[in-house]
């Protein structure tokens, strides 16, 4: 076998050699490191792959970490990554994402889908900490490298709670605007999709006040800039942007594909913690942002995909053990999302756990001497039950 001969040629890094035992026996056939890898001895590692393009990743790379190029970080993920992961990226000075089965499945669906049909909705669900947001980010990275326009809403729950300012909407009497959230989101949207802003032209005239309006044929960038600067009407600008993108995605001339990535989509149906001035609760549909986003999630447009995750952390009035779609979405949410393709995200498999463990060892994150032994590894498996986020928190102590 190729990899055995390579291991002899390596300098005696004991943990690397020790791990080259049949841990890849499950599932994925040939030894991954033989495929798509450059044979540079100093970077030989079982848990990494050099295949940094999500398009070319396949089951062979399952369980391995690929590096997101630093240039992509600020453009693709200005607001999408989980906070602990962002800290990890800063600490390790690199952003490595594990290639896992749910993301691969999503990407393969996206590759094969027919974009003239109504949009398909994909829903990632799983227990807390199993890696739904990271799978979503992986898919978003794929869409971004393929040149899609990405509409990433980092957490829909942020729009239904803790909102300091609620303005009554100028456009629709019974609705409420959230200027701060809307302008923040528009700013991040602008960072992500710089190149599309000049290419897409508006198809309709939008009047904001008596003196301000955006004409037909103007580039989308102007609309977004206006929304960022005029914070008061930013929620309506968001609505206009979503509508334009919906109409123009998948169009035949200058068509682009639109990926709507929503994290915590169960926040859109349910309850909010916001109150009106007379202390009566605000229903989600009375918020402009939520109303417009719900329209995006419907499948009455074509030329893109809706990828959503459920999230119990941050959700309101949901029990902490709930993770299945119907429990978190509720009846209304389920009926709106139906028919969707549920994609379960499970805990780490044995191979993925090994990979993660080796990665932490490689980054010298596990400092405790006991954690580098077999006994320590078994303890980690037992304590974390192979839950990715629990493992990450445990290793942060070591």
């Amino acid at each position, binding site marked *: 076998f190729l990899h055995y001969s390579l291991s002899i040629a390596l300098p005696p890094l004991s943990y690397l050699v020790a791990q080259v035992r049949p841990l890849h026996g499950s599932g994925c056939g040939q030894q991954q490191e033989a495929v798509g890898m450059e044979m540079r001895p100093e970077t030989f590692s079982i848990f990494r792959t050099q295949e940094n393009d999500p398009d070319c990743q396949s089951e062979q790379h399952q369980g391995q970490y690929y590096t997101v190029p630093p240039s992509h970080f600020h453009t693709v993920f200005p607001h999408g990554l989980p906070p602990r992961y962002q800290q990890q990226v800063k600490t390790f000075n690199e952003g490595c994402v594990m290639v896992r089965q749910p993301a691969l499945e999503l990407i393969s669906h996206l590759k094969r889908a027919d974009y003239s049909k109504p949009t398909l909705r994909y829903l990632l669900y799983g227990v807390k900490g199993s890696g739904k947001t990271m799978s979503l980010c992986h898919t978003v990275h794929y869409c971004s490298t393929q040149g899609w326009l990405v509409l990433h809403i980092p957490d829909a729950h942020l729009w239904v709670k803790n909102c300091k300012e609620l303005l009554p909407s100028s456009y629709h009497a019974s609705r409420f605007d959230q200027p701060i959230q809307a302008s923040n989101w528009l700013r991040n949207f602008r960072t992500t999709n710089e190149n599309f802003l000049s290419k897409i032209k508006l198809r309709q005239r939008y009047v904001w006040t008596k003196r301000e309006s955006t004409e037909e044929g103007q580039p989308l960038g102007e609309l977004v800039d206006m929304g960022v600067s005029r914070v008061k009407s930013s929620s309506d600008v968001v609505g206009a942007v979503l509508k334009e993108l919906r109409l123009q995605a998948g169009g035949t001339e200058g068509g682009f594909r639109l990926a709507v990535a929503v994290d915590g989509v169960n926040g859109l149906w349910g309850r909010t913690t916001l109150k009106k001035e007379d202390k009566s609760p605000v229903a989600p549909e009375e918020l402009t942002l939520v109303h417009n986003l719900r329209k995006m999630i419907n499948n009455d447009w074509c030329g893109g995909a809706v990828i959503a995750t459920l999230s119990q952390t941050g959700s309101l009035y949901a029990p902490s053990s709930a993770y299945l779609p119907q429990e978190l979405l509720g009846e209304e949410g389920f009926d709106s999302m139906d*028919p969707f*393709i549920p994609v379960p995200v499970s805990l780490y498999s044995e191979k993925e756990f090994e990979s993660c463990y080796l990665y932490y060892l490689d980054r010298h994150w596990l400092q405790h001497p006991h954690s580098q032994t077999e006994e320590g590894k078994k303890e980690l498996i037992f304590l974390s039950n192979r839950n990715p986020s629990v493992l990450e928190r445990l290793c942060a102590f070591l």
Partner: protein
Amino acid sequence: MAAHTLKKSIWSLGRIHCHIYGVNVRNPLNRATYATALSTNHSSQNKGFPDRGNKGPFNRRSRREAGDPRTDRMPVDQDWTTVYPTATPFRQGSVPLPVRMGFPVKKGVPPEKKGNLELIKIPNFLHLTPLAIKKHCEALKPFCTEWPSALDTGAKCDEHFPVKVECKDYVSAGTSLRNPSARIVHLRVSLSACVNYDYAMYLLTVLYHESWKMEAWESEKTVADMEEYSWEDSPSQKNIMSTLVRMQVAGEGEGEAVREELLGRPEVQEYRDSVTRLKNEGESESSMHQYRDAVKKVLNL
């Protein structure tokens, strides 16, 4: 003797004084007596006060030394019912168990039972050991009547007492007396034991006919009132129909014919079954997988 009474009076005077001055004599250092890992044992030397040489009203030297806790003198085969005959708060000197309770502060362990307020606060059942309950039963026996000797088989009991009512009571240590499961009462009647057959048949016939009558308010039954989920006319059906129509799966045609054709397809049937199963049975991994496969088939993936 006189000296002793004098000491006592000085002592009580001293205590009155300190009540006036607002100092807590029992806890001279005002240390918290719970949730600390520090020892609260003041019994030996200093009592925490610097030696004042027998001066002042807070004279410690004359205080009677606390004796050994009762646990030291407990034989293993003692009668526990004498230690805790009734419901009393936890006394750490009377319970010979090394119990710990409380929040471990700063990498410590839960504090020990000595001076532990947490153990005193919670209700305990130390007075209800099996032996104690046996003793209670023995004591109650003189007040009970004998079981009637004629009712010695189950069949005879059923014959004489056909109606059985079963109530459940729940005991728990908590803030509330009430337990919602205690409201459920089971009443059992064996139909074959009923004597008045004609009356029973009459009742059943009446009920049957009554159940067929429709009241005016029944027509206001909404989807939320339905006992079971029915897929027809549900949002799920509407969604899938519109999706399929837009996907132009069935080819061109007018509304009704297309709908019928779509509904008759096996994938749509499967989809309908999976959604019904999800809604009626609740969710589980297997039903989600079934739904997933059905959706993939329907949408031709």
